[in-house]
């Protein structure tokens, strides 16, 4: 660092596995990053910690991942004195440029924070494909069902169906059944055959694969029905979910239930990367627009780095590695370490991390074969299916805009139909809307375009704006 440049103000957004390891790496190099966490306690989603005062052990909370969770949490605790940690704080805007600035919300008050460097570790959210009845009380994402148990000591009440795809399906069913929930069925939209085809790739990460098999075996032993190749699901009920219907091999089944947990893998949360000015590319594997990043985590914007599931789903282990990789890249870009031997060692480590992350990516491709995302639902869904939960916009309204107004692009579709204009600003419905648009116009999902993000990335109270004005 030269004497003439200002000292770096490095901000890490997110305190999950990626953010924590990035912070650790910077602290080891003698820097003091600011770490902003939307949650009250560090850990992100997989290693989410319950509020202080909860008593379950790490083993009870995290099962097979207990050791990793413990390691991450205790690393963070040790880091605390060396970082500027801002929990319960939302980053709702990023103004990039020569003097970049973040807009924050904490305790209903607004603040700005300048930055010279950003490491965005914004994590992910369950991917959900709309289905009839998905807005009913009692219908939740797989992640939500997990958080209820992990962070609040609750399960979904009554008879629970777990439906969707991805490794989280069986993990959740296992955790729930162990905790005493009443699981009446686990419905997998993938085919077990697909998993066999992916076997060679899956075996690259034998531990993960074995866990999956273990969960399935355990569930079967408990007499919990596991069904694969499930096609369309549909929930119904009056004030809450009361029934779930599905088709499988041409046959339709309906069962009574009180809750449904559903999800089809994860989707990266990329709003801040967009506001930071990052270039986006449509990623076929994730079926999502993602901010471009190099092997180390550099984005297309100098001094903005990306790590963890927030820029491509790769799992918690990869997130820890990519957090470290991004921090090493940041240090490298700052000319650190200055000592030649240490510099060489750091470069070697960067290369090693890059190799490991690439190999992990191949595992992910294997997972996609085993748990394919259900991309053809757009063809089959009825006109009256609600796509946008916030605004209650239906598939029919989207299709009509295409037919009657010649709409071919997603932002135009939003302007015409209000899809994505609600409180979540397209976070939940954007992918589904793009798939409906793509199917209706005959273009690819990538060609349908990308919803433009504007601040605030989550709703902010007017009162916070007023308090801010009073301060100026």
């Amino acid at each position: 660092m030269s004497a003439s440049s200002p000292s770096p103000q490095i901000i890490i957004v997110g305190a999950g596995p990626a953010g924590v390891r990035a912070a650790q790496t910077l602290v080891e190099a003698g820097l003091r990053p600011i770490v902003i966490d939307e949650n009250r306690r560090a850990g992100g989603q997989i290693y989410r910690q319950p509020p202080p005062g909860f008593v379950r052990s790490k083993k009870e909370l995290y099962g097979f991942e207990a050791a990793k969770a413990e390691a991450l949490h205790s690393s963070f605790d040790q880091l605390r004195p060396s970082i500027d940690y801002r929990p319960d704080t939302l980053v709702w805007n990023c103004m990039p440029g020569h003097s970049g600035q973040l807009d924050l919300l904490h305790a209903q008050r607004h603040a700005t924070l300048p930055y010279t460097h950003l490491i965005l570790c914004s994590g992910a959210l369950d991917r959900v494909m709309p289905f009839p009845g998905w807005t009913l009380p009692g219908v939740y994402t797989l992640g939500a069902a997990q958080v209820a148990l992990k962070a609040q000591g609750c399960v979904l009440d009554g008879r629970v169906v777990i439906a969707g795809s991805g490794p989280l399906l069986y993990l959740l069913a296992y955790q729930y059944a162990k905790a005493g929930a009443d699981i009446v069925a686990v419905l997998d939209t993938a085919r077990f055959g697909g998993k066999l085809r992916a076997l060679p790739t899956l075996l690259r990460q034998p531990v993960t694969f074995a866990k999956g098999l273990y969960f399935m075996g355990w569930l079967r032993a408990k007499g919990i029905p596991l069904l694969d190749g499930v096609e369309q699901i549909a929930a119904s009920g009056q004030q809450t979910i009361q029934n779930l219907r599905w088709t499988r091999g041409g046959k339709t089944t309906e069962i009574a239930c009180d809750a449904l947990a559903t999800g089809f893998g994860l989707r990266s949360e990329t709003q801040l990367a967009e506001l930071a000015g990052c270039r986006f590319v449509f990623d076929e594997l994730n079926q999502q627009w993602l901010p471009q990043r190099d092997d180390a985590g550099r984005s297309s914007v100098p001094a903005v780095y990306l790590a963890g599931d927030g820029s491509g789903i790769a799992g918690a282990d990869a997130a820890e590695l990519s957090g470290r990789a991004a921090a090493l890249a940041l240090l490298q870009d700052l000319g650190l370490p200055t000592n030649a031997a240490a510099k060489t060692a750091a470069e070697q480590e960067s290369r090693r991390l890059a190799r490991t992350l690439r190999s992990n990516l191949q595992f992910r491709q294997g997972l996609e074969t085993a748990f394919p995302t259900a991309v053809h639902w757009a063809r089959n869904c009825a006109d009256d299916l609600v796509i946008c939960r916030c605004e209650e916009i239906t598939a029919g309204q989207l299709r009509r805009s295409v037919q009657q107004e010649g709409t071919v692009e997603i932002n135009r579709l939003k302007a015409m139909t209000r899809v994505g204009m609600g409180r979540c600003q397209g976070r939940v419905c954007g992918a589904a809307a793009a798939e409906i648009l793509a199917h209706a116009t005959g273009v690819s999902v990538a060609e349908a375009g990308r919803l433009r993000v504007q601040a605030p990335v989550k709703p902010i109270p007017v009162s916070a704006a007023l308090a801010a004005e009073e301060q100026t």
Partner: protein
Amino acid sequence: MSKTTDKVIDTDVAIIGGGLMGTSAALELRRQQRSVVVLEQGWCGAQASGVNYGGVRRQGRAACQLPLSQRAHAIWRRLEQTIGSDGEYIASGHLKLARSDADMQELIAYRDMAAAYGLELELLEAETLRRRYPWIGEQARGASLCAEDGHANPRLIAAAFARAAEQAGARLLQQSAVEEFGFDGNYFVLQNSRGERVRSRFLLNCSGAWGKEIAERFGETVSEQAIYPNMCVTEPLPPLMNLSLGVVGGAFYARQVERGNVVLGGGRGIGNLALDATRPRASSSFKALAALTGMVPALRNALVIRTWSGVEGETPDHQPVIGPSATTPGLLHAFGFSGAGFQLAPAVGEVLAELVTKGESSTPIDAFSIKRFAIQQASKQESKV
């Protein structure tokens, strides 16, 4: 680089800019049986026309705009007949609030002036104001009400005009900027980035914030800069504001749409003339929210869910450029509406069509002549001598 095709599209009128000015002109020209091609660099109605506040307002306009504005008002009243949809247009009334006695004097003077143009305004003292609109807070000293002004959804209106023009037989060439401009003394020849060429007898420059750029290609002298109005919108809220609100001085303008969201404008964002390059500013949003909640205290508990900005063309005197070119026969301008073009657009379209078919406008537009910039520049130079 664009490739040139051999085909040339021959048309009576070429229009650069597929926003409201261009598409309303296209629609009216089609009614007069003229052939029309509209060239738009992005999507029709996606710039100022589609992201503006949506105010359909006569009150507050300078005297020179009132004849045009009154003509537009008559078209808005029969909008569904004109474009086949209502674009969520409501003649809700527009209330311009006064925060001081000085503000009230300004409103009274304006009322008296506007009466001469057939615009009827009702002045309300504080007591009456709060009796009629109990949701207006103590900061309001009074207001001027224009009962028939209102608001509409700009995204829908802009798209509906484009669609109506197309259905009437106008040809829309979208997603392609005009790169080459030619004039041989009789015909204009344009070529866009896709290599499509258009030859026409008339050229309408309806290119908004890009108007100056186009005008200068034909040797015009004009002053215009891009501005980026700052906009916010809240979550859907229970019905509260039953008319469109403004305030003397313009610190904010707000309306509540039927679905309950409150749309608020005030202050400036940042940006440049590249498409999709505008950004709202948190500080502008905060100032506008403070001004709004000062007048509508119940909104203090609302959530803001989005902010945005857009590109508008502004002239130094805040009056648009409408009318014939100073340099080139057959070239007509309609740009630089300085953030107040939405309500005027249907009348501007009719005026442009009149200029093409009859050579003159039946509504006064001299105040908007592009020649005023050259005159201003000349007089500046004179005064230096």
